[in-house]
Structure formats: C-alpha cells, structure tokens
C-alpha cells in the first residue's frame, strides 16, 4: 500500500521553532540567530554590540558550540546572562536545543537575545530555531565568492554583516560586487560593513537592532 506523505522532513523542528517563537514573543524578546563560518566574528559582534548597548537594553546570549565553554566565559564577563549549548558533534543548533536553553535563560531580564549558532555555512541554514531575524556574518578573509558557494545561507539571511572591513587594504575583496551578488538573489537583505576590531560601522548595526526592537 502506498501512502502519500508530502511532509517536510524538518517539520518536527519547525513545530518546536514555532513554539520557541511564541514563547519569546510572550516575553517580549527579540531573538537573533547569528550564523557564520568559524572565526568570522560571531562572538566579537556580540561583544561589540554589548559594549554599545549596555545600559540601554537588556541582552542575553545563547552560545552554541560543538564543545567547550570558551565563548560563554568570554561573553559572561560582560555581565549578561549566558547559556551554553554543547551540541556534542552536531554541526548546527536545532529548535529543541534552543528550547532547552530558553528554560535556563532568565527571559524577563532579557530584551534582545543573541543565539550564536555553530560555526558553519551549511547546516544552520536548514534549521529554524524560533528566531525573529537571521543574521549572517561574512568576513573579508573568507573571500568574496562565498555567496556563490553557500547560496542557501545567503538566500535565507535577513542581514549580512561584512566583518573585518579594516582589513580591506590588505585583501582582494570586492565589497560592491559581493553586496550586488547577495542582493541579486536576496532582495530584502540588509548589509552592514563593519569592523568589530575598530568599531567602524557598529553604530549602524546597533541602530538597526534598536529599530527592530522598537517596532515590536
């Protein structure tokens, strides 16, 4: 007997993600899923954002890593609530892991929640977490061909942060061509060229974040 199924394989994950989203909404939290390859600057962007917005809004961080709690310790020093997820080998966070982390996060004390995904440009693109915005960080040393190599990630991003812009004089990276390529397949994407090291462009990024929060 043949049974027509026609169901998304990631349906179960999507359902948990929808529950996470409701939970975050009921607590008035804006959740941002930060994705990038390893070393592009996810933790640095979180730290630069905390530096700019400390005292203005309450920030919380969920740190996803395959192993170790190095990033959680670094971010924890800033005095914001941090929950560590160790995926134990999995190359991405899924909605269930985030749901467990949310149980350990003091949500009434959080207005903006960063979810730092595992460093990877492939798998995290497929797993919804319940976030409101998907932010992709792409850094100059990775090269300007990344949109062509990882199209799904660039297609689903709400925001692309181009990090390490201070290295532009030393690298062959065509920022205009890079931005044009992304906008070619993702018309709605916002692009922020920044340097977490020098602070260049961070203000534009945090203004965007504050704007998203005020719209809620």
């Amino acid at each position, binding site marked *: 007997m043949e*049974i027509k*199924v026609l169901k*998304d394989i990631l*349906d179960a994950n999507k359902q948990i993600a929808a529950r996470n989203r409701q939970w975050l909404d009921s607590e008035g939290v804006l959740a941002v899923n930060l994705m990038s390859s390893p070393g592009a600057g996810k933790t640095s962007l979180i730290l630069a954002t905390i530096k700019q917005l400390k005292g203005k809004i309450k920030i919380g961080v969920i740190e996803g890593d395959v192993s170790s709690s190095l990033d959680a310790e670094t971010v924890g020093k800033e005095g914001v609530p941090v929950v560590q997820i160790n995926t134990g*080998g999995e190359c991405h966070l899924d909605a269930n892991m985030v749901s467990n982390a949310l149980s350990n996060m003091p949500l009434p004390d959080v207005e903006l929640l960063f979810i730092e995904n595992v460093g990877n440009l492939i798998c995290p693109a*497929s797993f919804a977490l319940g976030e409101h915005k998907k932010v992709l960080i792409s850094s100059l040393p990775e090269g300007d061909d990344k949109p*062509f190599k990882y199209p799904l990630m660039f*297609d689903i991003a709400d925001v692309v942060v181009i990090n390490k812009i201070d290295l532009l004089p030393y690298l062959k990276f065509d920022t205009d061509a890079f931005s044009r390529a992304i906008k*070619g*397949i993702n018309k709605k994407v916002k692009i922020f060229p920044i340097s977490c090291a020098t602070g260049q462009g961070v203000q534009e990024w945090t203004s965007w974040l504050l704007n998203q929060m005020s719209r809620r």
Partner: protein
Amino acid sequence: MHELAITQSMLDLVLEQAGKVEAKEVRKIDLVIGEMSGFVAECVQFYFDLLSKGTIAEGATLSCTMIPTRARCRSCGKLFELKQFDWTCPYCQGNSLEITSGKELFVESIEVE
C-alpha cells in the same frame, strides 16, 4: 554531519505515518531533495541503514528524487537551471534572480505492508 539529524527526523516521520495505518513493514520511501539543501543522498542511505535497524523500516528502499536549482531572472523573466553558481541569467546576463526550486526536503510517499 547534518544528514544524521535529518535522517533521524525523516525516519521518525516515516514511522509515524506507517504507525497510523498499523503497517508491519515499510518497503520503500520516496524522498524529494533539492540540490540547494546541501543534503547528500549517499549519506542519507548510510545513516538510514544505521538508524532504521530494529524498526519496521529496516531494509526499506530509499528513493531520492533530486530537484535541480532553478531560478527566474527578474530582468527578462526567463526560467532556467542554475548549473554553475555564478548567479547570472544565461539569456540576458542579468544578475537579479529569484530561486524557484532546489530547497525541497520532504517525504513524498511511503510504501508499506
């Protein structure tokens, strides 16, 4: 690596559907996989053999229909297959494209006894 998590989700979905009709055995599973999903059919088979042991889906044949990445050019409106990811329309060289297929990842049907 994410094929493991996805294969587990797929198996859960198949067993749930088979359970609804009280099937004794799952013979075949038809999957539809978009090329852009980054999902490798060979890996699915490998993990499926591992994960399905001891379930009613053990030994089932996996059939994967791969969907190529297709796009519509926003300038000239033509539809085409994106063979190389240079994101350029082969008709008018426009580079504003809308991806129309290639992200699929679903179970189309199953055959049970």
